[in-house]
């Protein structure tokens, strides 16, 4: 069945199809439609879940942690300030190995107050032990909720599913809803081996000395490593059922690319138009969209980079005092594998600044004309 859905509602239909059991979320622009639609689904009885009208995002995630520890499928959604407020508990869910799915609408952090697209909010949480997925379409958002639970419940790690503020959250696109029966076959009920169980009492999260902490984190890292393969497998299984595949990365016209654009989220769609424009003009440009940021798909990224001598990395985020987070992760992954292409790191579109194919193409033309970027970041369309 096809519906025309805004990104926020696509996330809701994903949660509905996933038969989530506990929803605990607090409204924040531009996520509010998620909270509202899920409240409606629950009130109508379409979604047989407990909906907790919590009083803050911190409590929202705490409730999800409690619910997930019982073995229920838990869901939440937030954005920017709300995600930041959850920070302590993001660590708790990650290291606590709880397969919660959180949909984050990427919005810039204050101050100054703003509600527009920016990925610093979720990228600033990259160390919390959550898998992270960045979507470019509402179809991908819906599909990714199902894929997220599938993989999360296999590895015992939560997933943060990201979509750009307004560009996806409030933009309507046609979305195909898979049949419930198909989804049920893909995503069975969640039944963890260890849970809060009245018949078998255990303590979760207790005190440790310095003798076992490292081993506990080592196990979580191993789970992250394992997730890379499982994400691929789940993607293949989903493609067999629906015809749609979502993997670790997506490439566009990268064959023989000499300048490789790299981006996450909707900016990738704009970058595709820039690639076409550049190819028309005889510049061998290509695009690598990183879809899964955690675990970081270093091997696959290195393969995709291939022989490209130049990379233009569009970072819709900023780590103050450092630079673009995507560029930093890319550089580390590539250098570790013996690759060191010249990398132009552009801070682009933060705080919702519009990014056009022309500005992206301009940045590539600049990279084409220069031997080396030198050290430091550049700013796309900065007005000073």
């Amino acid at each position, binding site marked *: 069945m096809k519906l025309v859905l805004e990104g926020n509602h696509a996330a809701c239909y994903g949660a509905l199809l996933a038969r989530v059991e506990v929803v605990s979320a607090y409204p924040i622009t531009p996520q509010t439609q998620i909270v509202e639609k899920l409240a409606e689904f629950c009130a109508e009885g379409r979604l047989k879940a407990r909906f907790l009208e*919590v009083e803050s995002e911190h409590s929202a995630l705490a409730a999800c942690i409690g619910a997930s*520890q019982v073995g*229920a499928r838990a869901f939440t959604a937030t954005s920017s300030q709300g995600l930041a407020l959850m920070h302590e508990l993001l660590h708790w869910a990650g290291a606590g190995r709880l397969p919660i799915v959180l949909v984050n609408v990427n919005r810039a952090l204050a101050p100054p107050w703003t509600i527009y697209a920016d990925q610093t909010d979720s990228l600033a949480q990259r160390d919390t032990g959550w898998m992270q997925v960045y979507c470019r379409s509402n179809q991908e958002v819906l599909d990714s909720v199902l894929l997220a639970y599938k993989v999360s419940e296999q590895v015992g790690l939560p997933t943060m599913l990201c979509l750009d503020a307004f560009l996806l959250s409030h933009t309507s696109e046609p979305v195909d809803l898979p049949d419930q029966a198909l989804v049920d076959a893909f995503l069975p009920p969640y039944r963890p081996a260890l849970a809060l169980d009245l018949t078998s009492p255990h*303590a979760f999260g207790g005190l440790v000395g310095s003798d076992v902490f490292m081993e506990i984190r080592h196990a979580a890292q191993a789970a992250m490593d394992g997730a890379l393969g499982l994400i691929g497998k789940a993607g293949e299984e989903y493609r067999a059922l629906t015809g749609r595949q979502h993997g670790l990365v997506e490439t566009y016209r990268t064959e023989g690319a000499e300048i490789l654009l790299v981006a996450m989220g909707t900016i990738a769609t704009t970058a595709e138009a820039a690639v076409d424009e550049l190819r028309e003009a005889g510049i061998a440009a290509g695009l690598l969209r990183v879809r899964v940021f955690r675990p970081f798909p270093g091997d696959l990224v290195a393969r995709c980079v291939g022989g490209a001598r130049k990379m233009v990395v569009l970072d819709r985020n900023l780590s103050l005092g450092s630079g673009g987070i995507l560029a930093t992760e890319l550089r580390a992954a590539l250098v570790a594998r013996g690759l060191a292409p010249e990398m132009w790191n552009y801070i682009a579109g933060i705080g919702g600044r519009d990014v056009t194919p022309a500005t992206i193409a301009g940045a590539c033309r600049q990279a084409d004309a220069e031997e080396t970027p030198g050290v430091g970041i550049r700013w796309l369309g900065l007005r000073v």
Partner: protein
Amino acid sequence: MRSMGIGYRAGPARARMTAIGHADIPREEYLSPGHLACQGCGAALAMRLLLKGLGSGTVLVVSASCWSVINGPWHASAVAVPFLHAAFETAASTAAGVSAAFAIRGIRAIVVAWAGDGGTFDIGFQALSGAAERGDDILYVCCDNEGYMNTGSQRSSATPLYAWTTTTPVPHGKRRPKKPILEIMAAHRIPYVATASVAHPEDFVAKVRRARAIEGTRFLHILAPCPPGWRILPEEMLQVARLAVSTGVFPLVEIKDGARVRITVMPKDIEPVAHYITVQGRFDHLTTDEIATIQSSVDAAWMALLARAGSSGSGGRQEG
């Protein structure tokens, strides 16, 4: 001894609840020996009595507090029920999620949110108020040792006026009175709010049982003296707990639906607060004036309580 200048009358004897004698406290232990509490710890006894009152079918959600440590390090657990450690602010919010999950699975479970006074009066208050406003089906237990004792006796808003703590040092001690948590929780109009004392186990267990049978948000405020934090000897803990009740400092009450107030243990003669204060090292520095100030406020609170109980409920058991 009579208190200074004020006589107390017991309230009218009406509708007495069934008294729970010693024989009615279950023998079964849910707390095993070997836990990590200090000698004479009020919190250990509180948990022991709570679990006796609740029995199996109970899930504990415990936020950062002494009990995060008392339960023992991985891979041991001192209690015979499922136990979920939770972040400091989140006893009520985590428990709300646990409760929702059991409910959606159709499993009947008594979900306890256990927090210290820090995790209740201060950093955990938002979550508690939120849960109470929603009426989440949890039994919230505040184990109050009147300070952040797990981290070495810093003040909380539950610390009494003038008390020494490491962050309210002598000579002034704590400059503000204890936050009136019971009034605050009663004002949320939740079905059941009560105080309990580790020195009054029958009253304690009876309240736990009543709370257990009620659906919605229930709040139990337990005074659990802390020997290191209160500067008393371990063997003095129970006597100090008794004095808190017999001097009127910590009345044993229950409040239903925010309005029906009942005093469940009525001291025959209220002792002077000095009996309670002068046996604790954390009050060593108090002047006579300060003790008199405390006496006045205890008197005023007690009179107000009697008035509320008189107009809404019955008197309770007499205690000599």
